[in-house]
């Protein structure tokens, strides 16, 4: 079952990277036609720039996400116990040890990122270290490790960075579309209008992609696989309770990366019922499913 999920996650990632590539190429193409007035030149520039951007986002998306969340490396000297827990779980899971990062924040949360198990990162808040006991920490880290093993991280990270990029551009262009409408040069404003319309059409498609990637079932699966590793239900259950009932909000929390985390970093969203748009299942549902595992 997990192998099938891994394949599905890789296929979805491929789809998203291709769409992103196409999107950036088109965007740069229109922009260059606008600036240089030369189609051949525009094609070359469009392709080069989008290859560079796609390549970079694919290889550095984990670094981008870490920067966004202001994380730093958790060294063996400073966080000995945490490193031991992670190494132990990696032995049980038979995977390479991911890099370990911490966020200096008193909120309780954790996420995993990277493009494959060999280049993966687990990041937790210092608040989590202070307020969770060892069994609970093991549960949380095993959960993140399961996301890595299932290749959920690849898909989620790519989606967040690439879709985020497109949203920023489309935002900028659609603003420019209305501002530039009084421009004397009809041709220029015409092309900007075309780009704007393309973005308007594509936005719902990207929103759809986001939804497809951030499937709540991933969380259930990661919870279940975490328990397969730790052989201790109560650790994860207690940790999830503590994390969900905590009222402190992660300072760097933002909507775009919220799906990465083990519990929704936006405190308000946590209390809502399951809906089509929620990125995480409710606590009750998660605990109920954990309790049903035997």
């Amino acid at each position, binding site marked *: 079952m997990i192998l099938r999920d891994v394949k599905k996650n890789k296929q979805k990632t491929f789809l998203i990277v291709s769409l992103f590539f196409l999107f950036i190429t088109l965007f740069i193409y229109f922009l260059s036609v606008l600036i240089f007035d030369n189609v051949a030149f525009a094609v070359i520039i469009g392709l080069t720039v989008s290859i560079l951007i796609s390549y970079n986002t694919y290889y550095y998306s984990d670094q981008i996400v870490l920067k966004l969340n202001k994380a730093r490396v958790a060294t063996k000297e400073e966080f*000995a*116990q945490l490193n*031991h827990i992670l190494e*132990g779980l990696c032995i049980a899971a*038979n995977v390479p040890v991911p890099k370990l990062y911490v966020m200096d924040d008193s909120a309780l949360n954790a996420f995993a990122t990277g493009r494959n198990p060999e280049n993966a990162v687990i990041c937790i808040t210092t608040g989590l270290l202070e307020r969770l006991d060892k069994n609970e920490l093991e549960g949380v880290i095993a959960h993140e490790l399961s996301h890595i093993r299932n290749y959920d991280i690849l898909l989620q990270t790519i989606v967040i960075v690439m879709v985020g990029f497109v949203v920023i551009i489309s935002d900028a262009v659609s603003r420019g579309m209305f501002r530039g409408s009084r421009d004397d040069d009809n041709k220029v404003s015409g092309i900007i209008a075309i780009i704007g319309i393309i973005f308007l059409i594509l936005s719902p498609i990207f929103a759809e992609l986001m939804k497809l990637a951030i499937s709540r079932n991933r969380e259930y699966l990661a919870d279940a*696989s975490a328990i*397969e590793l730790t*052989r201790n239900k109560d650790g994860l259950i207690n940790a999830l309770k503590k994390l969900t009932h905590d009222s402190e909000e992660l300072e760097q929390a933002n909507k775009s990366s919220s799906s990465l985390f083990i519990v929704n970093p936006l405190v308000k969203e946590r209390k809502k019922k399951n809906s089509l748009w929620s990125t995480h299942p409710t606590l009750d549902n998660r605990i109920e499913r954990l309790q049903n*595992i035997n």
Partner: protein
Amino acid sequence: MEILLIIIAVIFILIIILYNRLIQLKIRCNNALAGIDNQLKRRTDLIPNLVEVTKGYAKHEAETLVNIVNQRSHSLSEKAKQNEEISKNVKSLLALAESYPDLKADKIFANLQIELTGTEDKIAYARQFYNDSVQYFNTAIMVFPNNILAKILKFEEREYFKVSDEDKENVSIKL
């Protein structure tokens, strides 16, 4: 005639796939066992330091630990038994800190405590992975048609790294 050739070819390919699968499982068992040995060695390296730090407080216990560590174990079950005893003694030495504030304040001891507790956990996880791998392997060589191939290749059931039946409960797959 052609149909016969195709059937033979298909059977041959199936045997190759089965064979590779069994070999992979076997290699995984070997690697898992090496993983346990790595962690056991790490602990053996740490124990002299622990003995050194704690012998002023609990001489007898420290000596007992040294004796157990120096015993030779031949079979896997002996090794598992020895491991269990070392774990028990290490844990009781580490627990000394509760009754001796001096020891608790000792920086070397505090470091040892983190290292040894971590290593004990890793031994447990390595054992869990090994026993899971053995379970897969043993099941794989018992089901049809693998059992025929396993018999020809002389694959034998692997031994678990566990001591008692109570231990078995802990490591059985819960999913």
